[in-house]
C-alpha cells in the first residue's frame, strides 16, 4: 500500500510537470528541453528556504516559483530569438548550464552532496508527514495546475498560442506580438514546474543535481509527446503511463541495473514508434 501511494505521488508530481511542459510544447509549439532546469530551480529554491531559514513550505514554494519565474524570464528572453532546431539546441544548452550551476556552486547548493533534511509541509500545526496525507496535498496541487492550464488553453490567450503554433507569420500579421506570447507562456510553464520541484524536494526530503539533468528534461519530453501535444488530459496520462510502466517492468525479474536500462530502452522505443506511427501521441490535438 505504501508503495502504491509512493507511485501515486510520483504520478502527481510528473503530472504537474507534464501539464507545465505541454503549455510550451503543445500549445505554443516550442520544442523546449529545459524543463528539468526550472523543476530544479523550484526544488532548490524551496529546499534552501526551508533548510536555511526554516520557512513554512507554502511560503518556500512561493519563493521557488519566483526564482524559477525569474530564471525562465532571463532564459526565455534569449531563447525567444531562436527558431526550430536551434531553439531545441539552445534549450539543451540552458539545461546543461543550470545543471552545472547546481553541481558547482557548492557554497549554496552543496554540489553533488545535495541538500538533506528538507522538512515536510505543515499548515496550521498539521504536518503532512504521512505519505497518504502528502498524496492528498500533491493531488490538490495537480488539480490546481490542471485547472490553471485548462483555463489558459481555453482563454483568448490560449487561442493566440494555438494560432502561433500553426502559423507564426499569419498571427503576427494580425498584430499579435508573438515573442511576447511565447515569453509569457514560457514563464508560466516554468513557474508551474517549480511547484512540482518544491513538492518533490519536500516529499523525498533530499535533493541533488542528478534529478534535474538533461536526461530528466528528455524524460519529461517523452511524457508530453506520449500523452499527446496540446492536450491537458494527455499530459497527465503520459505521466501515469511512463511512471507506472517501468514499475511493472520491475516485477518481471531483471536485476536492478538491467531493469533501469530496460526502462530507458522502453522510453526510447516509445519515442521512435510514436514518431513513426502516431506523431500526435495518445490523445494529442497537434502534429509536430
Amino acid at each position, binding site marked *: 500500500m505504501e508503495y502504491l501511494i509512493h507511485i501515486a505521488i510520483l504520478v502527481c508530481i510528473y503530472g504537474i510537470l507534464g501539464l507545465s511542459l505541454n503549455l510550451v510544447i503543445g500549445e505554443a509549439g516550442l520544442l523546449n528541453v529545459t524543463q528539468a532546469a526550472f523543476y530544479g530551480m523550484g526544488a532548490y529554491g524551496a529546499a534552501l528556504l526551508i533548510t536555511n531559514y526554516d520557512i513554512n513550505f507554502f511560503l518556500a514554494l512561493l519563493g521557488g516559483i519566483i526564482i524559477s519565474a525569474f530564471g525562465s524570464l532571463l532564459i526565455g528572453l534569449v531563447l525567444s530569438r531562436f527558431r526550430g*532546431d536551434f531553439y531545441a*539546441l539552445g534549450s539543451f544548452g540552458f539545461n546543461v548550464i543550470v545543471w552545472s550551476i547546481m553541481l*558547482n556552486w557548492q557554497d549554496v547548493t552543496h554540489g553533488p552532496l545535495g541538500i538533506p533534511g528538507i522538512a515536510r509541509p505543515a499548515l496550521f500545526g498539521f504536518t503532512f508527514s504521512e505519505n497518504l496525507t502528502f498524496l492528498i496535498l500533491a493531488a490538490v496541487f495537480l488539480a490546481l495546475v490542471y485547472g490553471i492550464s485548462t483555463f489558459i488553453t481555453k482563454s483568448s490567450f490560449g487561442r493566440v498560442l494555438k494560432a502561433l503554433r500553426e502559423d507564426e507569420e499569419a498571427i503576427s500579421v494580425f498584430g499579435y506580438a508573438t515573442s511576447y506570447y511565447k515569453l509569457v507562456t514560457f514563464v508560466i510553464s516554468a513557474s508551474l514546474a517549480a511547484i512540482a520541484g518544491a513538492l518533490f524536494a519536500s516529499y523525498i526530503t533530499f535533493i541533488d543535481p542528478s534529478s534535474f539533468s538533461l536526461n530528466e528534461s528528455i524524460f519529461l519530453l517523452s511524457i508530453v509527446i506520449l500523452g499527446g501535444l496540446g492536450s491537458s488530459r494527455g499530459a497527465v496520462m503520459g505521466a501515469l503511463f511512463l511512471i507506472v510502466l517501468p514499475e511493472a517492468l520491475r516485477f518481471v525479474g531483471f536485476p536492478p541495473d538491467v531493469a533501469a536500462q*530496460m526502462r*530507458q*530502452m522502453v522510453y*526510447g522505443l516509445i519515442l521512435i514508434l510514436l*514518431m513513426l506511427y502516431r506523431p500526435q501521441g495518445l490523445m494529442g490535438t497537434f502534429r*509536430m
Partner: protein
Amino acid sequence: MDIVVQILLNAVIAGAIYSLLALGFNLIYSTARFFDLGYGALTAVGGYSVFFLYKILGLPLIPSIIFGMIMAGILGWGVSELVYRPLRARKASNTVLLVAALGVLTVIQAGIAILFTSQFQTLSRYVAEQQTYTILGGVITQTQVLILAAGLIIMVLLGVVLKYTRVGKAVRAVADDEEVATIVGINAQRIMGGVFFVGSMIGGLAGISVGFDTGIQPTMGLALLLKGVIAAIIGGIGNVWGGVIGAFVLALVENLGAWQFSGEWKDAIAFLVLILFLLFRPKGILGK
C-alpha cells in the same frame, strides 16, 4: 609558461577529437538537414566494439579499430533506413525527426549498458607503458598524436572527396535539393544511406579515440555529440573546414576556461559559447 603550453596541447588534442565529431555530424546534417542525436550513441558503439574485440577477445589493434568503425557505420545506416527514411518519405517535420533521433539515442545507449554494464572502461591494454613526448615542456601521449593525425587525414580526405569527385558532387547536390538531384538521375536514397554510413564511421572513430584517450561509458554519446554540434555551428554549419576550425576554437575556449575557473565548468562554458554564437553570429565563423 609550461602550463600555457600544456593547455595549448590539451586544446589541440580535444580539438582533434571534436573535429572528428564535427566532421561526421556536419556531413549528416548538411545532407539530411536535421539534428541526428542518434549520431551521439554511435560514438559509444565504436568505442564498445573496440572494447569487445581488442580488450575482451584480444584481437590486434588495427583490425579492431576498423571493425569498430564499420559497426558504427552499419548501425548508423540501419537506423537511417529503418527510422529516418520512412519519416522523410512522409515529409515529417524536423521536430519529429529530432524526437525520433532522441529515441534512437536512448535505445542504443541502454542496449550498450545492458550488454557491457554502465561502468567506465578504458581501451588501452597497457596504460603504464604509454609512450609520451615532451614539446616545450608540455606532455602529449602517443595515442594523442595518432588521434590528431587521424583527425587531420579524415578532414583532408572528406574535403577533397566532397569537392572533386563525382560522388562528392552528388552528395552536395542531394544536400542542396533532394528533389532536383533525383530528377537529374542521382539516386538520393543511396547517397543518403552512404552519408549516414560514412558519417557514423567517423563518429565511431571519434568514440574510439576518446576511449583510448580517457575511457568509454554507454552515456558518453550525448555529451560528445553536443560538442560536435557546437563545433559545427561555431565553424559554420555544413562547412567541412569550418567544423574543424570550430572544433579547435571550442577546445581552446574550454581549456582556457577550465584553467581559469575549474574543470567542472567545461560543459557549461561550451554551451555558453554556443548560445553567444547563436545570438550574435548564427552562421558561424566561416558561414556563407
